[in-house]
């Protein structure tokens, strides 16, 4: 029996090298590849779940003025909740952002029984009419989501951007005019106690230049049906001035009454039963808190 012993010629190592290079090339090409192609039309079919307590469900007409409910809504909703989107915008190629943030399900607690009770009392009649109870009337209510943002690693002279969604509270029948303004509270903390700040408002206000877009806003009713502009995107750009010392600061944003000419115009257009200025009720903190850690 003849036994041959082959001396290694180095070819296997060459093959390994070629495979590695091929893998690297494929990886490199992958980064240059055309983005995944979506089919938005089919994805935009209405996928809203039914909201029911016992045998009674919220009628479809409550949501009839809203954009379509995207198929991947739950994925985006979870992503926002877990802070997967740095800027809270540009969520998905499936649908525009407003298809997500204009859905009541985008916000915490809409599906709570207490909140759903309001909408379960709406009855859909014929020709786009609805009937609803009037013993109590929702006249004022709004909030932001997210309401707390922490920004770390900012240097003096740099800009930061925060996006939040200002929305009408549940069960509100009024158009609400407001102007968002920056505020600098003497103290504040995140709900979970992650960060706590004590500061001198008169000193801190000179460290930041805050630009809010849009600042003057008309929020539309959320009852008996959701109107298209019941939720709106707000972008806050903050410039940290060069003279800002290291430290953690709190920049707040909260609604006040709108400018008088805007208020008059909206009152004229909608009437005093339908329109109100925001700002009478405070909540003990700014509606949006931006904690800025300057390095």
């Amino acid at each position: 029996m003849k036994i041959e012993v082959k001396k290694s010629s180095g070819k296997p190592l060459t093959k390994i090298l070629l495979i590695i290079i091929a893998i690297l090339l494929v990886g490199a090409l992958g980064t240059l590849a055309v983005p995944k192609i979506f089919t938005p039309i089919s994805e935009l079919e209405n996928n809203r779940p039914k909201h029911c307590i016992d045998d009674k469900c919220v009628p479809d007409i409550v949501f009839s003025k809203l954009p379509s409910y995207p198929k991947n809504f739950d994925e985006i909703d979870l992503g926002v909740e877990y802070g997967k989107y740095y800027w809270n915008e540009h969520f998905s190629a499936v649908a525009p952002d407003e298809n997500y943030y204009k859905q009541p399900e985008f916000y915490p607690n809409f599906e709570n029984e207490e909140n759903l009770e309001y909408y379960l009392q709406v009855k859909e009649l014929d020709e786009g009419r609805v009937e609803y109870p009037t013993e109590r009337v929702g006249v004022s209510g709004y909030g932001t989501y997210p309401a707390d943002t922490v920004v770390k690693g900012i240097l003096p002279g740099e800009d930061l951007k925060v996006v939040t969604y200002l929305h009408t509270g549940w069960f509100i029948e009024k158009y609400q005019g407001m102007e968002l303004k920056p505020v600098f509270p003497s103290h504040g903390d995140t709900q979970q106690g992650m960060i706590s700040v004590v500061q001198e408002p008169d000193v801190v206000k000179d460290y930041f230049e805050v630009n809010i877009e849009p600042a003057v806003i008309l929020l539309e009713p959320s009852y008996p049906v959701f109107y298209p502009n019941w939720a709106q995107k707000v972008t806050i750009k903050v410039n940290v001035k060069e003279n800002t010392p290291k430290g953690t600061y709190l920049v707040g944003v909260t609604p006040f009454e709108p400018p008088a000419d805007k208020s008059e115009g909206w009152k004229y257009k909608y009437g005093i039963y339908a329109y109100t200025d925001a700002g009478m009720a405070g909540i003990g903190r700014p509606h949006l808190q931006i904690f800025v850690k300057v390095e």
Partner: protein
Amino acid sequence: MKKTQTTFVFVVLTLSIIATSVKADNYGKSTVYVNIPSDTSFTLTVLGCSGSNIIGTTEGGATSTTGDISFNATTTPENNINAQSVGACTQLQSGATNPIYQYDPTGNVPLNFSLRFENALPAWITVRAGGVTYGASCSGAGVNTVQIINTYTTVAYNIAQANCIANVTLTADVTAGASAGITSLGSLYSRSQKA
């Protein structure tokens, strides 16, 4: 030769790791954003008309109230005048079970509610808030009995986001020096009729 090839593999791997790091740097940033999924929304209701309303959905905000409140004094001086809503009907509050205001946090943040009037009140009227909390999750929450002025005063505190509502009553005292007729105080109206 073998050594050269091994070195080459090492160099390729090292370069690829460096390249990956550089690519990651393009997407990473020294600034870190942490978004906390909190929602500060609330709902404030006032007394409306009994029964129901029928509207077409193209008619937004066909409410029965302006959202304002008034105190109707039939004589002066008069104390503990109950607030009533201003609108298509007159609905007078009747204690904390049927209060002029109900505050309800509708997001996921417990809130302290405060109230203010648009303008400073005349010396002849004093307005007080009071009330109770209502619901299964009101541990640690409460409603203060306080005077309401033209700067925010905390009325209800630590109202939880679910199953807790602050029922807030407003009452007014009017002195003998009250003006006759309707006096508008921004979102507060006082109707006073001298004896």
